[in-house]
């Protein structure tokens, strides 16, 4: 019986074996590295195998004669090879070449921090990151300040990047420049940005070497890309002791279009009644802000977006006069701002894409400063250094802009891009009785190519030409960057570029006999990225030329440099449920500009700056806890006094080191049918003494510039119906 079984089995199995031929071999990649997991198959049959961890494969096939073997793997180009199958084992060797694609290809990253989901590999910050950064109070600029390259300047708004002044950083929304990204300046008090982080899906903070598409920024570009059509309709409302607001966002049933409106009212009266402020506010800050938007998807996958915001604010504050303690400076400000942005992104077919942007903004200020006595009555002292600080000013700044960019995809994923922009700026001012008017027709043409030489080597070559009618001068700015992939997730980049910027209006009012100010950037960086961790180190050298001098004459004789090294580490992996980043910047910079007698370290530059940002969401409590600690070494301050034909340094020093710990807490809870988020936040939790610089009196004594109150505390409730915004902060367990 047994024998029969064995016999039968033998007969049957030999029959099978004889019919089959074994195919074996190895699979490697183009660098000759072993490739596991590649699929090998006889085309048109079911026979095949998979390469193992040593790159070997082995399988049997019934197929005979001339056959095609196909080897494939994700991310590689499939290889086909014809073989003849006889009776003997066939041995083969395959080399697969990497497929060039956008996700895997090296991206040029020198100088820029890209946030948002657009390119996974370069993601650093998302809009959620902005609202959950401790102490930042959902202000985009405040969060950007925790990234390397930015200075901790608390006495005025703006991003001070790599030895550059605040006005050397420009903000762009959907490609077009924003003229007044911040609320109007108040002396010695930094103001917030105008735009909510929820408007944007991606933020690129470029600290240098950026694309030829952007100009008129010597140091840095903050490139904001607005969201497309949101996922669901929602109504929202927010309540806080300092503001109330409500909004509606309606998405069409077919999800092809949407519109929205929002209104917010802010009044700090109640808050200032509880939390004492150093200045005496005779007009407590009050803001009205309304915005509206629509977005329409086009047939060929493009989108048209419109966003407008209208805001007014009013404030007035008194501070003791620095020269006479019995007198006060009463500063008042009224601002009205209207911003419009219309953009159209379209696929034109045949590899062509188009981006059109149209923007218009107008900004009006009524500002006054009056010397008052103890009874708050306006007085005249007869002392010129006091009386001359009295002023009234009205300003109007309009910017109309059109920008067109065309993209053409070349072979592979290389792209050539070109276009132009036109800006008309109209600035009118009345300072006491002095009228001024500046009009500029500014034109620029640019072209740039993203060249993917291999999957591991990419370059960006660009050039920008600009002409300003006001300066009656043109400039030409080349840009170049290269990136080389050094291994899994790691890459080196270098960037070079020249950048031009018109002098600020303050100086152009005096004379338009200026040229462009100029900066040249040299950057080298290394970045290593995994899905949950990012390491980045960057070194830069920046040369400033033709900076504005105001003394001994108004001209472009200024100069300077900045160099430094910066580190960034973000980790969402090592400690469960904890997301943190560390950034460090070393900066060595000097410049001779305005009335500086020589090249000196400017008063907005610190040698060392470091931030630690931590976020932890505790699922069982539905609460997120966020901490931000920032440290910066002291910044220099100077008293420059005119002595004959020169300004001399009459006094100088360095401020104390800057420390601040910010905290915020987000508690998420259903409230009836609404989803609610309660936000509590506090700046400067440790009550550290913060000195941003000094003001000098006529007699040379100095007073520290500090915050209006040691801390800012915020408590608010945000409700939304329809869409679950709290899902923004969904747990890590999923």
């Amino acid at each position, binding site marked *: 019986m047994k024998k029969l079984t064995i016999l039968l089995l033998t007969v049957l199995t030999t029959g099978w074996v004889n019919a089959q031929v074994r195919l074996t071999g190895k699979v490697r990649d183009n660098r000759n590295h072993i490739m596991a997991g590649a699929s090998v198959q006889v085309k048109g049959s079911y026979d*095949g195998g998979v390469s193992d961890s040593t790159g070997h494969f082995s399988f049997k096939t019934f197929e005979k004669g001339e056959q095609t073997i196909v080897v494939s793997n994700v991310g590689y180009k499939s290889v086909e090879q014809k073989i003849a199958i006889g009776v003997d084992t066939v041995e083969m060797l395959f080399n697969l070449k990497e497929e060039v694609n956008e996700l895997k290809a090296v991206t040029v990253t020198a100088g820029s921090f890209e946030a948002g989901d657009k390119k996974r590999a370069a993601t650093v910050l998302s809009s959620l990151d902005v609202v959950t950064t401790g102490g930042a109070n959902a202000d985009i600029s405040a969060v950007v300040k925790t990234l390397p390259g930015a200075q901790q300047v608390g006495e005025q708004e703006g991003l001070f990047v790599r030895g550059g002044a605040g006005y050397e950083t420009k903000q762009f929304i959907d490609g077009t420049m924003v003229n007044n990204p911040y609320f109007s300046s108040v002396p010695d008090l930094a103001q917030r940005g105008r735009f909510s982080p929820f408007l944007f899906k991606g933020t690129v903070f470029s600290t240098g070497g950026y694309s030829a598409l952007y100009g008129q920024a010597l140091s840095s570009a903050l490139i904001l890309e607005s969201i497309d059509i949101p996922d669901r309709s929602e109504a929202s409302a927010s309540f806080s002791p300092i503001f109330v607001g409500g909004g509606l966002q309606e998405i069409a049933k077919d999800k092809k279009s949407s519109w929205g409106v929002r209104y917010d009212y802010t009044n700090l009266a109640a808050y200032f009644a509880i939390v004492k402020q150093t200045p005496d506010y005779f007009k407590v800050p009050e803001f009205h802000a309304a915005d509206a938007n629509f977005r329409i998807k086009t047939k060929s996958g493009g989108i048209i977006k419109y966003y407008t915001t209208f805001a007014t604010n009013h404030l007035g504050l008194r501070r003791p006069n620095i020269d006479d303690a019995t007198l006060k400076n009463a500063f008042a400000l009224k601002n009205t701002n209207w911003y419009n942005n219309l953009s159209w992104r379209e696929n034109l077919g045949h590899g062509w894409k188009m981006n059109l942007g149209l923007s218009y903004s107008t900004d009006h200020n009524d500002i006054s400063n009056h010397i008052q006595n103890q009874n708050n009555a306006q007085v005249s002292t007869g002392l010129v250094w006091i009386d001359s600080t009295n002023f009234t000013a009205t300003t109007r700044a309009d910017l109309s802009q059109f920008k067109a960019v065309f993209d053409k995809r070349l072979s592979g994923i290389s792209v050539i891009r070109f276009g132009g922009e036109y800006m008309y700026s109209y600035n009118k001012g009345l300072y006491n009785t002095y009228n001024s008017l500046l009009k500029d027709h500014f034109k620029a043409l640019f072209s740039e190519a993203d060249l993917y030489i291999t999957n591991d080597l990419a370059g960006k070559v660009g050039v920008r030409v600009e002409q300003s009618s006001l300066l009656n001068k043109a400039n030409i700015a080349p840009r170049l960057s290269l990136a080389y992939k050094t291994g899994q997730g790691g890459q080196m980049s270098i960037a070079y570029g020249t950048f031009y910027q018109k002098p600020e209006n303050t100086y152009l009012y005096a004379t338009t006999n200026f040229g462009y100010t100029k900066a040249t950037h040299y950057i080298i960086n290394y970045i290593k990225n995994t899905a949950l961790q990012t390491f980045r180190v960057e070194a830069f050298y920046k040369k400033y030329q033709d900076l504005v001098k105001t003394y001994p004459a108004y001209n472009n004789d200024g100069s300077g440099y900045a160099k430094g090294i910066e580190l960034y580490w973000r980790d969402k992996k090592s400690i469960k449920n904890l997301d943190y980043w560390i950034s460090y910047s070393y900066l060595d910079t000097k410049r001779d500009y305005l009335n500086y007698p020589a090249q000196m370290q400017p008063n907005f530059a610190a040698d060392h700056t470091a931030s630690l940002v931590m976020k932890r969401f505790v699922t069982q409590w539905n609460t997120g806890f966020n901490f931000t600690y920032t440290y910066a070494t002291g910044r220099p301050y100077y008293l420059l006094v005119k002595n004959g034909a020169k300004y001399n340094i009459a006094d100088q020093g360095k401020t104390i080191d800057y420390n601040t710990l910010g905290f915020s807490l987000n508690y998420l809870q259903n409230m009836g049918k609404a989803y609610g988020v309660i936000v509590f936040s506090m700046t400067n939790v440790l009550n550290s003494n913060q000195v941003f610089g000094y003001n000098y009196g006529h007699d040379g004594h100095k007073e520290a510039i500090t915050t209006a109150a040691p801390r800012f505390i915020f408590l608010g409730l945000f409700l939304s119906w329809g869409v679950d915004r709290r899902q*923004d902060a*969904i747990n890590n367990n999923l």
Partner: protein
Amino acid sequence: MKQVLVIISMFIAGMVAAQSKYETAMGRGLEQLQAAKTAEDMTTASAFFERVGDAEKDKWLPYYYAAYCNHLTGWMNPKADKDKVAEKSKDLIAKAELVERNSELYCLRQMVAVQQMTVDAMSRYQTYGAEANNALENAKKADASNPRIYLLQGQTLLRTPEAFGGGKAVSKKLAEKSIELFKTFKPASPLHPSWGKDEADKLLEACQ
């Protein structure tokens, strides 16, 4: 004698019933899938199904199983690059969808999206969470009686905190609905997807 009969009948079954080479191959593949203990076994099964799919361009099932097996490797190998695995899964699903779009393939799309979301749920929720929800919506539109839809929805919601609309109570209802549907569920053929009953029972247990 019995053994001989078995062997002979197996042989005959093998040869004669091999009227459909395709069905035999699929059967073998499903056996591999059942027997797979490691991510490597699963990759082999996936590659096998993919080969069948490449040869049988008018069938969606081979690619469905190829994607399903490939998707599972992402969970079986804790060190797997889930994005890479998902890229491959989506590739395979897309090939199956060229043949037909159906509830099962949409379910698979949900599973793949959830897998990608877990890489960094906090910041990926908006993109991959929405993708997963969309897939289930489509699956319902295609065939609302597919018990796997409610199983997948229940599994996702169980791991979502109550405050976000998840939790045991919501999930339990879905598990019950899935089990109810499994009672009457009949796969269109022995080769069609029929998995999920055990998982639904487990889900219900976890919801207690």
